[in-house]
């Protein structure tokens, strides 16, 4: 398929504007003018429509196929929530920030406040900021809040503790804020080794970052104990909400001792991911950290919703406007559509589905941590590796069969990991077909391991040379 730049023909236009019949505005200052043409593709309207329609037909999405990408919670994005987001198209994001603007933006502010209040209730936190633009941004905001808390108390803190099964963004976020990382190994029971954690704890630890359930999809039986130990050193407990879909409505992280949490609205709360998103990573905190929350803060008083814009203790603004507003409308609509009982059923069904897949595939793939799982299960392709077939090869096989591959090679502590998260929105029939294809892949690995080398065979491109792509990067169109 050609790039749109390669389709460009000099002089071709989509729209030809009539000659202007009004006086020209004052010319722009010379220093603001381009020195050379912008280099835009010259194409007709039909060329443009075909180009983007054909591109979209090559897209793989939850709307087209099963997408069991572990840890990403690729659930169906309810279309009714899109209608909600469309209602706000006319609102300018600067309106509530203009002098006297608040009364004219009460609906939007009420929505943001309503969402934040719902998220605080779901997570057991005192207050939530919706500013962070994605999960990792939420993590960084959360760690900045922790740093502000310790600074205000005069605590001297240097370290952040993370388990070795954590998402890579956890240590990265803590390091960005200036902390050194202490990594705790995973015990045979599938979670952070409690004894190693105890031994590593000291007065200079600022926070412990946990993902619950963890990235093996397992429940940690020692959470309460870990939080209590951390608190006895005045270290705060950070909850990475990536896996909230397993426990939403069942457990409130705030109730078991977590002080700071970030959520991924694009995972748990059913808004689209990535290019179809964008994301949103609200951060919730306990009472002691409320003074440090980003500004502007939406506060409700007798006359309605107002913005608190000054507070010397605050870490300041962390995003333009109010974060990704459209995503928040969809997430709020999702919460209101499902209600309390609906959200509880989400996590119940998500956990049931993951356990179903785990039980059905257990005989065909190694399961290094063999426990009842939560919302996802992690297999190892180690049995297939003996035949020369790796997790990556199985992923390529699945692409040909019409499935988005599960997450592979993560978590790092499982060799040739295959991490499957079906989510609650898939039917038993869909999962049964997927299970059948996974079993076929395991059988092919036994009978004809060499066959995987030629896969995928049905895609516009076959096996990509990932090493060469990473070593000699060429990210620019040759003609530019």
């Amino acid at each position: 398929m050609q790039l749109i730049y390669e389709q460009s023909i000099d002089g071709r236009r989509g729209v030809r504007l009539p000659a202007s019949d009004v006086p020209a505005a004052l010319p722009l200052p010379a220093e603001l003018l381009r020195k050379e043409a912008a280099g835009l593709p010259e194409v007709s309207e039909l060329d443009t429509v075909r180009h983007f329609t054909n591109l979209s037909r090559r897209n793989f999405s939850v709307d087209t196929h099963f997408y069991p990408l572990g840890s990403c919670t690729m659930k169906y994005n309810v279309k009714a929530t899109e209608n909600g987001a469309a209602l706000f198209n006319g609102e300018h994001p600067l309106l509530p920030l203009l002098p006297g603007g608040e009364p004219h933006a009460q609906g939007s502010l009420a929505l943001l406040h309503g969402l934040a209040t719902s998220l605080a209730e779901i997570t057991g936190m005192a207050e939530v900021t919706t500013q962070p633009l994605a999960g990792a941004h939420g993590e960084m905001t959360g760690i900045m809040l922790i740093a502000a808390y310790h600074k205000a108390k005069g605590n001297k803190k240097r370290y952040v503790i993370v388990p070795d099964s954590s998402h890579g963004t956890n240590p990265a976020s803590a390091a960005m804020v200036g902390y050194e990382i202490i990594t705790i190994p995973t015990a045979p029971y599938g979670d952070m080794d409690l004894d190693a954690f105890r031994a590593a704890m000291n007065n200079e630890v600022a926070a412990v970052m946990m993902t619950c359930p963890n990235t093996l999809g397992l429940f940690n039986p020692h959470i309460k104990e870990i939080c209590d130990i951390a608190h006895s050193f005045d270290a705060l407990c950070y909850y990475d909400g990536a896996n909230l879909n397993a426990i939403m409505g069942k457990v409130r992280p705030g109730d078991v001792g977590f002080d700071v949490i970030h959520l991924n609205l694009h995972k748990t709360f059913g808004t689209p991911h990535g290019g179809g998103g964008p994301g949103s990573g609200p951060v919730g905190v306990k009472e002691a950290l409320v003074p440090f929350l980003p500004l502007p803060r939406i506060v409700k008083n007798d006359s309605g919703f107002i913005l608190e814009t000054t507070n010397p203790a605050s870490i300041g603004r962390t995003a333009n406007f109010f974060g990704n507003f459209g995503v928040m409308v969809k997430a709020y609509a999702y919460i209101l559509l499902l209600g309390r009982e609906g959200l509880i059923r989400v996590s119940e069904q998500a956990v049931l589905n993951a356990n179903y897949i785990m039980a059905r595939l257990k005989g065909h793939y190694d399961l290094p941590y063999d426990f009842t799982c939560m919302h996802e299960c992690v297999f190892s392709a180690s049995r297939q590796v003996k035949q020369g077939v790796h997790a990556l090869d199985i992923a390529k096989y699945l692409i040909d069969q019409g499935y988005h591959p599960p997450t592979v090679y993560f978590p790092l502590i499982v060799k040739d990991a295959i991490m499957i998260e079906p989510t609650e929105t898939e039917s038993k029939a869909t999962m049964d077909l997927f299970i059948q294809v996974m079993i076929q892949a395991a059988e092919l690995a036994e009978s004809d391991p060499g066959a995987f080398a030629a896969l995928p065979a049905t895609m516009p491109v076959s096996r990509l040379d990932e090493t060469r792509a990473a070593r000699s990067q060429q990210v620019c169109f040759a003609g530019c």
Partner: protein
Amino acid sequence: METYFTKEHEWVRMKDGVAAVGISDFAAHQLGDVTFVELPPLGKSVKQFEQFAAIESVKAASDIYAPLSGKIIKINDLLEESPEIVNESPEDAAWIAWLEPSNLDELKNLMTQAQYEEFRGGME
């Protein structure tokens, strides 16, 4: 020349009072094709088992820890342009840096070749 190893799969080899360090053959194999090596700054002082470099492969990004305390006196610039050397010759041509060790007693915190082979045998 005796080679010592860490539990994190770095190797260190002494020669004329200075120490060459790199990652083990086992580590290079586990990482898969290496795509980038982040070298430590020349002259930096590091503590034993402190992170001092990083390696990225098609599978993962990994921190590299100093097998001994000391000062970085030489770095292997070749790895910046040709990270594949780490896969081709991890325990020889792909040395990452030379250290001027500050405390040779720390060698007792490391494993000998035989001990390391036994250690990683349990990891397969």
